[in-house]
C-alpha cells in the first residue's frame, strides 16, 4: 500500500483510522470486488445470510479495522 503508518516498528504496523479504513476497503475489493462502504451496507442490512463463505469471512474478520469502538 505504500502508506505511512501511525506508529511502526519493523514488524508491527499500528494503523490510524484512515489507514485502517484503507486496509478494509482494499480487502473488500480484493475478496469480493466491492468497496468497503458497499460491504458495510450489505453487512448491516443482513444481505449475507450465510457469512461463513471464504470470501465473505475474510472481510468479516477485518471489520474491526473499519469501525471504531
Amino acid at each position: 500500500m505504500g502508506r505511512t503508518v501511525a506508529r511502526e516498528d519493523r514488524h508491527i504496523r499500528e494503523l490510524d483510522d484512515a489507514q485502517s479504513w484503507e486496509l478494509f476497503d482494499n480487502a473488500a475489493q480484493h475478496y469480493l470486488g466491492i468497496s468497503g462502504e458497499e460491504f458495510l451496507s450489505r453487512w448491516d442490512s443482513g444481505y449475507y445470510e450465510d457469512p461463513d463463505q471464504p470470501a465473505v469471512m475474510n472481510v468479516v474478520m477485518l471489520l474491526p479495522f473499519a469501525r471504531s469502538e
Partner: protein
Amino acid sequence: MAGKPEYEAVQRFRKSLQRTLSCIVRGAYVDVKGGYYPSRTPLPLTLKDGLPVGLGSGTDLSIAVSYHYRLIEAPSATRPWRVTTVAYHYTLQETEGPEILSYQWHPNVPNSVSFPHLHMSHGAGLGREEFHRAHLPTGRVTLEAFVRLLITDFGVPPKKEDWEEELAKSLAEFEEDRSW
C-alpha cells in the same frame, strides 16, 4: 505507554504472532488497530494488509491470517493484564487459485457456527460436495500448529533455521496466557 503492563501484554501478544508468521513469511509484519485498554469490541490483527501472502520458493501457496483479541484484567499480582483470542482465521490457498483449507473460530459472527472448525475447499481436491460446505469440528488450533503443518506437510520452506525454537517460544507465551 511503553513499560505499562497493559502495553506490555498487548505487545507481547502481537510480537508472538509476528514471530510465528516470520517462520514462513519473509519480511512478515502484522497490521493492528486499537490501543492498550479493555474494549467492548475486539481488536484486530492481520498479516500484511489482510490479503493473501505468497509463501514463495516455488510452493504456489499463499496464506491469510487474521485475529480478534481482547485485553483483559487478570487476577494476578505479577501479570495483571493478559490478552485473549476471541476469533481466528488461518487460510491456505493456491496463490493463483482456490482456497485449500481454512481453520476458523469466530463465535461472535451472526448466523455462523460458534465452534472451532475446518473448511476444506475446492483447492483440496476432494470430490465430495459435502466437504465444500462442511464445518469440520476441531479443537481450537494455534497459529503455531498451523505454521508447523505448512512446513512439515505442505513443503513450505522455513524462513528461519531455528523455526522450531521460534515456534516453541511463541507457543510457550501463548500457553501462559491461554484461558481455554
